[in-house]
């Protein structure tokens, strides 16, 4: 039930935010706050690792879109790590696969491009 949020700063310039649990209208505000906090602390290349996410709803999608917008406006970017079909499906249905960079692993996402 609890949303797990863990920050790994060891992959500079990338900051990895691992999200665990269910992201819905109840827990999404905590994800939003964390993203806002990271951006205001100066993090610009954020990788959101969604491999531990069991559930993601439209509120969660909205928070990720908001995070991407915020980062882009600071010349940063938000990359997602996601290989779970049931989570990818939510991005596909909503067309957001064309909005986000989606990687298959944190290694890939932090390899630079």
């Amino acid at each position: 039930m609890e949303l797990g949020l863990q920050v790994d700063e060891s992959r500079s310039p990338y900051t990895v935010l691992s999200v665990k649990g269910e992201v819905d209208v109840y827990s999404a505000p905590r994800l939003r706050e964390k993203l806002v906090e990271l951006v205001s602390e100066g993090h610009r290349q954020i990788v959101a690792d969604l491999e531990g996410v069991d559930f993601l709803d439209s509120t969660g999608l909205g928070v990720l879109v908001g995070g991407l917008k915020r980062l882009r406006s600071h010349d940063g970017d938000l990359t997602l790590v996601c290989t779970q079909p049931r989570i990818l499906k939510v991005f596909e249905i909503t067309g957001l696969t064309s909005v986000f960079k989606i990687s298959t692993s944190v290694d890939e996402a932090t390899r630079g491009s």
Partner: protein
Amino acid sequence: MDRSLELTVPSRPEYIGVVRLVVSSLATARRAIADERIDDLKLAVSEACTNAIEANNAAGAGAPVVVTCWEAPERIEVRVSDSGGGFDPEVLPAHPPVTDPERLNFERGLGIPLIRSLVDDVRFESSSNGTSVCMTLFGAPEGSDETSEIVRVVISEQD
């Protein structure tokens, strides 16, 4: 349909997880639909509950959300009802295309589109006294498409 279950919860976000759990455990336990479809059902019901809670809270009367599930061998139907002010599901604003940078200004409005594409049938009954969203997932005839997984489950149970 022969069996129904009803769940009434306070209009607070923290109860949506319980609703998801009930719906998915019901569908799993009764083997009504394939596992992949259970994720579809969970998400659709969750979206409907999010909207119902918002509508109830906007109306201010503290009404609960009522979730009713009916199941039959090749079908599960879930109705999410609120006592909010209602809306017209046919006239929702459209998003800019995903290729438009403007798309990033829209964090909301994905719930109803998700519901529509996740379930096999959805019916909105909305008036100024409240809204009911009725969502149905069918078990399709054998071999016709992905929903036919239900048939395989039923068959493997008979072994």
